[in-house]
């Protein structure tokens, strides 16, 4: 494409927007509303995911071994566990460490009461691996596999924690998708309407263009430019708003409700904004491009 043709299409796209400024503003406002809500859910979801991931890191599966199992065999099993792709991290707790922990937990300041067991560790067969998974969705599968390993006596895990987090994750995801889906439909409808109005406005011009020998691509280009501009402007406005809103909300919550910070840690705006901006701009651009591209097709039959 010639640079002059590119500028021509760009200019015509901007002209289209200016000619139907009210429709264009309505479309931009709707896209902005959609993307604002998308960004809002994106922020909530990514923070919830963050909390879930943090919590997931503390929910482990504990593997105990048969009494008297050889240390080398235990190490070998540990290596097999580490090699699984679902496994994020493993932690080996020897019988001595387990007993020390138990002493702290049960005898507290009265450690001398435990002295009687000094030569006879009651947890001698309690060396274990605590296995942390990358995603708790895989817990059942990994537990089944662990139970099948020769030399494994017992596998402890929390089904409730895993299921609870998985379902929270799913609910947030489904709810977000649903709301975003509805809003996207409204945005698509409005952009399509705006492009149709612009096409009706330029009907004479498009007809002349066709008869002169303009290609479909050349006729389509100003409308696609119009759609892309609406999409990108519609995405940029809420991004700017969300950037400042998110930052000030986090600052406010952290300063006013400092007690929450122990329970819930917000991701800083700098951590989420690049992903949010890339997603929102792609969404705006994608909606603008595809809606205008397909809407204008029906106006090309000359």
């Amino acid at each position, binding site marked *: *494409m010639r640079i002059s*043709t590119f500028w021509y299409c760009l200019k015509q796209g901007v002209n289209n927007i200016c000619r139907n400024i009210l429709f264009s503003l309505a479309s931009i406002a709707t896209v902005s509303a959609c993307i604002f809500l998308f960004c809002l859910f994106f922020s909530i979801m990514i923070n919830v995911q963050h909390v879930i991931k943090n919590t997931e890191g503390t929910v482990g599966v504990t593997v105990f071994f048969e009494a008297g199992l050889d240390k080398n065999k235990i190490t070998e099993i540990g290596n097999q566990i580490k090699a699984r792709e679902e496994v994020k991290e493993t932690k080996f707790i020897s019988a001595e460490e387990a007993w020390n922990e138990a002493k702290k937990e049960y005898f507290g300041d009265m450690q001398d009461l435990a002295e009687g067991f000094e030569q006879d560790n009651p947890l001698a067969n309690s060396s274990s691996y605590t296995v942390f998974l990358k995603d708790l969705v895989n817990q059942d599968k990994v537990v089944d596999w662990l139970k099948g390993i020769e030399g494994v006596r017992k596998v402890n895990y929390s089904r409730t924690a895993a299921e609870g987090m998985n379902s929270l994750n799913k609910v947030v995801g489904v709810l977000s998708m649903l709301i975003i889906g509805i809003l996207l439909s409204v945005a698509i409808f409005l952009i399509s309407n705006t492009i149709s109005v612009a096409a009706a406005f330029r009907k004479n011009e498009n007809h002349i263009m066709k008869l*002169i*020998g*303009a290609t479909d691509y050349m006729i389509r280009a100003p409308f696609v430019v119009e759609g892309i501009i609406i999409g990108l402007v519609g995405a940029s406005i809420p991004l700017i708003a969300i950037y400042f809103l998110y930052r000030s909300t986090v600052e406010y919550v952290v300063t006013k409700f400092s007690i929450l910070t122990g329970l819930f840690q917000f991701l800083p705006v700098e951590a989420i904004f690049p992903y949010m901006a890339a997603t929102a701009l792609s969404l705006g651009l994608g909606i603008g491009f595809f809606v205008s591209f397909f809407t204008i097709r029906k106006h090309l039959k*000359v």
Partner: protein
Amino acid sequence: MIELWNVSKTYEAGNKALRNVSMNVEDGEFVFIIGRSGSGKSTLLKMLLKEIEPTSGKIIVNDMNLGKMPRKFIPKYRRKLGMVFQDFRLLKDRNVYENVAFAQRVIGASTKSIKESVPAILTMVGLSSKYKFLPQQLSGGEQQRVAIARALINRPEILLADEPTGNLDGHNSMEIMKLLNEINKQGTTVIVVTHSQEIVDRMKKRVIVMDRGAIISDEKKGGYTYEN
């Protein structure tokens, strides 16, 4: 060369616009097509532009069979044709220069080429001093000149004019016809659909008379031979 072989057109409502029309137009010819309203003249032009398809028959333009032409070749084919309308069809929000440049712009011509050819064609149609005027600031005759300039800017081999003088007074009509005659003398095939008896009688060109979708007369140097 334009060839029509037994071309018929029936619209969806059952209205027969053309009935077995066969004719030839040689390169560089000047042809008037006359006839009553609804006799099929405009349908014929639309078919040549490949705006509508014949129900049956074959149309060959410069050795290209329009019926077998793939959709993607239509824009290139149309660049070989120039079209002038009765209502001028100028873009009201653009001045004379931009209206003419538009025809080059939309086929992807370079800015350099546009800057060279638009002033030349405006000089040819006698509007070089009014290049900044908007269409509504021009007379009907001047507007039609702009439309002709736009039709000619891409150097078409064939110029189709559908009632080019329909909205003009006698003086302006003759001026436009003189211009079309000049264009024809430079080698462009010109086909003019008209109702103007005065023009047809004065120009002494080939005249094809149509009635109810059929050609009823075709004379080399004819005159206006039917009662409107």
